[in-house]
C-alpha cells in the first residue's frame, strides 16, 4: 500500500484554524486530508477521491485527481470538483516539484473531474481533452455551475468555473514531459461521449478516468452498449497498473474491470428483458439491476439514473 506523503500547507492551516475555533472538536473535519496524494509509481501521484457525492464538507472531493512529474514539466490529470480542491492539488504539486505545470488534462466532462481546472490558470497550461469535450462542457456549463452551487454552497464553490480545452485530441497523441511521455487516446462513446485515457510511458501507468469505477457505482452518461464493448477491449490491454476515476489509488487489469462489467451487463440484461415484456421506463426503474444494490456505494444516488439512460438507449435495438 502507498501512504499519503503530504498534507498541503493550506489544508493544515485550515485544520489548525478549525481546531482553534472549535476546541471540542475531536474528530478531524471532513476536509482535513483532502489534498493527500500518494506516489504510486516514480513521479506518478494520485489523490484518492471520497466515496461521497459533492457537499460543502467534502468540497467536491469525489473523483481521483492525479499528476505526473517529468524532467521538463508536470501534467495534471483531472483536477477534482471545485476550485478550492484544485488549489489543494496545485499545492500538492508544488510541494513535490517546482517544474512548470505544462498540461491540465481532463479525462471527460463531469464536474467532479473538471471544476478544479481554474486553480491552474495562473500557470497558463495547455488544457487538454477529447475532441468532443469542448462541446459537451459548453452545452452543460450552466447546469453544472447551478448544480455545483446547490451541492457545495456558493462559498465553497466560489472560483470554480468551466475551462474549455485548448488542445483537442481526435487521435492518439503524445505529450512530452522530458524524460517521459504521455499517450492520450480518445475513446468512442462509453461512460460519456468524451472519454480520454492516458498512459505514462515511463511507469506503464494507465489512467482510465471514469471508464473504470470501483467501490462507487458506475454512472452512465454515454452509451451502455459502447461501454460494455470498450470494457472488452480495455480488458485485453496490459499495464503495470491502472488508476480508476473512482476507487482505490491503483488497480490491476483485467480484474479491475470485472465488477463494473458485471454491473453494466446486469443492467443491460434486465432492461432488455423488461423492454421485451413491453414494460415502461418507470416500471424498469423499480426493478432493473437491483441485484447489484449491495455491491456498490452511492447505489441509491445513481442507479435509477443509470437504468433510465440504459432503457432510453436499448429500446432502440
Amino acid at each position: 500500500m502507498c501512504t499519503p506523503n503530504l498534507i498541503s500547507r493550506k489544508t493544515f492551516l485550515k485544520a489548525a484554524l478549525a481546531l482553534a475555533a472549535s476546541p471540542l472538536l475531536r474528530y478531524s473535519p471532513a476536509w482535513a486530508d483532502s489534498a493527500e496524494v500518494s506516489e504510486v509509481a516514480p513521479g506518478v501521484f494520485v489523490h484518492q477521491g471520497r466515496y461521497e457525492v459533492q457537499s460543502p464538507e467534502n468540497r467536491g472531493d469525489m473523483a481521483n485527481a492525479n499528476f505526473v512529474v517529468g524532467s521538463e514539466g508536470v501534467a495534471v490529470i483531472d483536477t477534482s470538483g471545485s476550485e478550492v480542491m484544485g488549489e489543494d492539488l496545485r499545492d500538492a504539486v508544488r510541494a513535490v516539484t517546482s517544474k512548470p505545470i505544462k498540461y491540465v488534462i481532463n479525462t471527460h466532462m463531469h464536474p467532479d473531474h473538471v471544476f478544479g481546472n481554474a486553480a491552474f490558470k495562473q500557470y497558463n497550461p495547455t488544457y487538454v481533452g477529447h475532441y468532443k469535450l469542448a462541446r459537451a462542457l459548453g452545452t452543460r456549463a450552466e447546469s453544472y455551475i447551478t448544480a455545483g452551487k446547490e451541492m457545495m454552497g456558493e462559498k465553497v464553490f466560489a472560483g470554480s468555473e468551466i475551462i474549455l480545452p485548448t488542445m483537442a485530441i481526435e487521435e492518439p497523441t503524445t505529450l512530452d514531459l522530458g524524460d517521459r511521455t504521455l499517450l492520450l487516446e480518445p475513446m468512442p462513446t462509453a461512460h460519456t461521449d468524451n472519454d480520454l485515457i492516458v498512459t505514462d510511458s515511463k511507469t506503464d501507468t494507465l489512467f482510465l478516468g471514469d471508464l473504470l469505477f470501483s467501490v462507487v457505482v458506475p454512472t452512465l452518461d454515454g452509451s451502455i452498449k459502447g461501454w460494455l464493448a470498450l470494457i472488452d477491449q480495455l480488458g485485453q490491454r496490459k499495464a503495470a497498473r491502472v488508476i480508476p476515476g473512482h476507487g482505490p489509488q491503483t488497480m490491476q487489469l483485467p480484474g479491475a474491470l470485472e465488477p463494473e462489467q458485471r454491473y453494466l451487463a446486469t443492467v443491460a440484461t434486465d432492461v432488455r428483458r423488461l423492454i421485451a415484456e413491453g414494460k415502461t421506463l418507470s416500471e424498469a426503474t423499480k426493478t432493473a439491476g437491483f441485484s447489484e444494490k449491495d455491491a456498490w456505494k452511492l447505489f441509491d444516488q445513481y442507479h435509477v439514473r443509470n437504468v433510465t439512460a440504459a432503457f432510453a438507449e436499448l429500446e432502440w435495438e
Partner: protein
Amino acid sequence: MPRPLKTFARNFGLAALAAAALVLAMPAAYAEENMWPILRQDEFGDRPIQENDGMVVLEAPQKVEDAALVPLTVRVPPSVKGKLKSLTLFIDNNPDPKVAKLTFGPAQGTGGERNFSTRVRVDNFSHVRAVLETEDGTLHMATKFLAAAGGCAAMQAKDPDADMADIGKTIVRVFPPALESDPIWAGQVMIKHPNENGMQLDINTAKFIPARYVKEVTVKRDGELVFKLDGTFSISTNPNFRFTFGKGKANDLDVVIVDTDGAVFKGQTQPKGS
C-alpha cells in the same frame, strides 16, 4: 409561441428559492414564483378547472433522477366513461411551460382506463400539471411537484452525434391486451430527434444551436384519428409516447411527425406476421 423565456440568471435565483422551499418541505414558500395563473389564463381563460376530482391522475417520479428524461404518465380511470376532448401538460417553470397538447379523435377508445405517457425535460424545481378536457367541455387537473436531484445529469443528449445520425428513425408498436376483445389497446411511438431547445451554445461555432423540435405528431388507427399532439422542446430528446386507443379491425397505427424545420417523418406498425 413560448412566452416566459426566462433568463439563465433568473433560473439561478429560482433554484436557490426552490431549494429553500424544499428544506422547509413547503411548496407554498415557492408561491411568489408561481407561473400558473398566467399559464392558466393564457390557455383556458376564465373557465373553471376542477382539481383532484379523480377524473385524471398524474404519475411522476418522487425525485428527478435525470432532468433530461423524466417519465410522466397521465391516467384517466375507467370510472370516467365518456370521450375525451383534450389533454394538456404543463411544467410551470420550464422555458416553454406548455409541454404538449393532445387533441383526441374518434379512435381514442372508451370502455376502460385511458392513459398517456411521455418523457420530459425538467429545467428546475417545478409543478407539473395535466389538464383534461372531457366531452362536455369541463376541465379537470392533476398536479405534482418535481424536485430535481442535481448533480451530473444535465439536460443534454448523451450522444448527440449518434442521435443526429439517425434523425427521423421511427418505431411504432402496438401492445395487444391480454384479452383481445378488450376495447382499449396500447400503442407506442418513438422518434429519433434531438428536440433541441435553442438555448445551448455550440462551442465550435460560438452560436446557439438552433431550436429544432417535434411540433406535431398525428396518430391514426386504421385511418382514424387517435390523437394529434402539439409539442414543444420540453419533451425529451428522442420523443417517446405510450398511449391507449380504441380497438379497431386491423389495429394498424400510422404516425406522421412534423418538426419545426418542416421535416416530415412517417412511421407505422409492422404488418402482422412480419
